[in-house]
């Protein structure tokens, strides 16, 4: 069969072109498990070369026959494996959590614009809720750009926490905030962030989390270059269907975002 050795995409998992007639690329689940009461992690290996994702890009992750969900890249390694961190919210993420290693998902992406930042300086990354998902990938990138950086991570309850440090690299310090006061700072991530902002001068602030948190972050960082990473209902990921529009602006999250400068989306955040 000559070339057929190269086609052993199933058993041998060799990479091959022409694995699909459409933009969904098959990927095998490598691991899939809980990180904490709230968060799960899934690592997948695409069967074919995928464009190298950059922070804060995301993939539409298709569970065949069930649903297709947007998930931000949490990590990407040299063998092309992609990691996502997710929270079970409804049927789609529940089904995702049930996938066994070796089963197939489909990946569409990377979608969205990469976060583009100038080189070097000091940075603060503020995250809350499921916003933590892209943070490891963001911090890795900022560190590689020469940033000295600090992270604020806020959760409601202490048992949502997991060892975020072990997934990150190159950050200066991880500040924890819990609303149940079971660990770290007692209160909201945005409050902790504000107090840090009042004491240190940052060149760059990146916020990922609930709308309210991002709104207050934007207001606390007037004058500092601040990016907020948003969520919206993504259906097509191509700028065609309009479902991800950030009303009342005319920005489409899937093609213009998911990261925006505060001034681009402040009307949306204030809504």
């Amino acid at each position, binding site marked *: 069969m000559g070339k057929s050795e190269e086609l052993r995409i199933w058993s041998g998992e060799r990479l091959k072109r022409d694995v699909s007639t459409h933009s969904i690329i098959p990927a095998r689940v490598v691991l899939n498990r809980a990180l904490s009461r709230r968060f799960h992690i899934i690592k997948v290996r695409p069967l074919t070369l995928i464009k190298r994702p950059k922070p804060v890009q995301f993939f*539409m992750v*298709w569970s065949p026959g069930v649903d297709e969900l947007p998930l931000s890249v949490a990590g990407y390694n040299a063998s092309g494996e992609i990691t996502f961190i997710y929270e079970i919210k409804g049927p789609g993420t529940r089904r995702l959590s049930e996938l066994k290693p070796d089963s197939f998902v489909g990946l569409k992406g990377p979608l969205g614009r990469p976060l583009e930042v100038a080189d070097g300086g000091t940075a603060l990354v503020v995250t809350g809720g499921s916003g933590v998902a892209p943070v490891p990938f963001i911090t890795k990138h900022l560190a590689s750009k020469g940033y000295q950086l600090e992270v604020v991570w806020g959760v409601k309850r202490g048992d949502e926490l997991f060892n975020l440090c072990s997934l990150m690299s190159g950050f200066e310090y991880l500040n924890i905030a819990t609303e149940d006061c079971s660990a770290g700072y007692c209160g909201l991530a945005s409050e902790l962030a504000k107090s840090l902002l009042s004491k240190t001068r940052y060149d760059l602030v990146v916020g990922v989390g609930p709308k309210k948190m991002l709104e207050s972050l934007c207001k606390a960082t007037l004058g500092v270059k601040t990016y907020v990473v948003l969520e919206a209902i993504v259906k097509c990921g191509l700028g065609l269907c309009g479902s991800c529009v950030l009303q009342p602006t005319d920005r*489409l999250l899937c093609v213009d975002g998911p990261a925006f400068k505060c001034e681009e989306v402040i009307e949306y955040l204030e809504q």
Partner: protein
Amino acid sequence: MSTLSSEADLSTAVAGVKLKHVLMNASGVLGALPEHVTRLANYGLAAVVTKTFTKRPREGYGPPIILRLENIGFLNAVGLANPGVGAVPQVVRRGKELGLPIMVSVGGSTVEEYVEVASVSADAGADLLELNLSCPHTMGYGLDVGSDPSNVFEVTKAVASVSKVPVVAKLGLSDNYIKSAGKALEAGAKALTLINTIRAMVIDVYSLRPVLSNVFGGLSGPPLHPIAVKVVYDVYREFSPEIIGVGGVTNWVTAAELVLAGAKAIQVGSALSSNDPRELIRSILGGLSEWVKGLEYVRLTDLVGLAHRK
């Protein structure tokens, strides 16, 4: 020499509505909300076409709803997701505020629904109504109507006879497209939009399942283009009506072919998923302008239907 005088005249008119150039979006690409209209206006289009509105809001299908294909086309089954006729007035108003002609795409599963959506749209100030007689993936909507010339006649007649706003009938590929086109014109359509997507499907060979949540969808983009050219050519040869050509327009050449086949305006759909839709529109217009001048014509509309010359 001013920049202006070095450009060809790309203006046109559809059913009496003047357009500063020939490009508008295809229905279903944005156009369901006022913010979408703003965005389309920023792309530099000469007119905005809304998403097809139905009487009641429709959630549409869950993802996956759109696939980019290796054959460089797109496959979609959005399921006519739209906020319902109640949202039409604010969408039309945004068009007016931006000074752009706006064509409301009208859908329905019964003649009465078409008439109702059309009336609301007309009252809201729409410049044109596009009857979607051809959406190929919603049961009870679309192709069932468009492939049957007598249905086309009935729906078009019902709307045209109550509407003060010019009616444009949008048809898809079917065995009877020439007849359907004739019937639409006979019933009072002032122009035709040709063509809608073609039913198609994609199966995932790993999970052995159809990929779209709706199982099948409508094929758009470049695979459609030479088929659209043929349909426009045939209908123009038969009736020389006003035609808005749509299907696989991605650059000035694809637009020019539709013009030569008989289209006096052009819609761009899938290609608006390009990285820079604004630049895309500019470059199509720039290419068309050079083309018209290169052929030593003054107006793009002078080239409409010229492929029919012996």
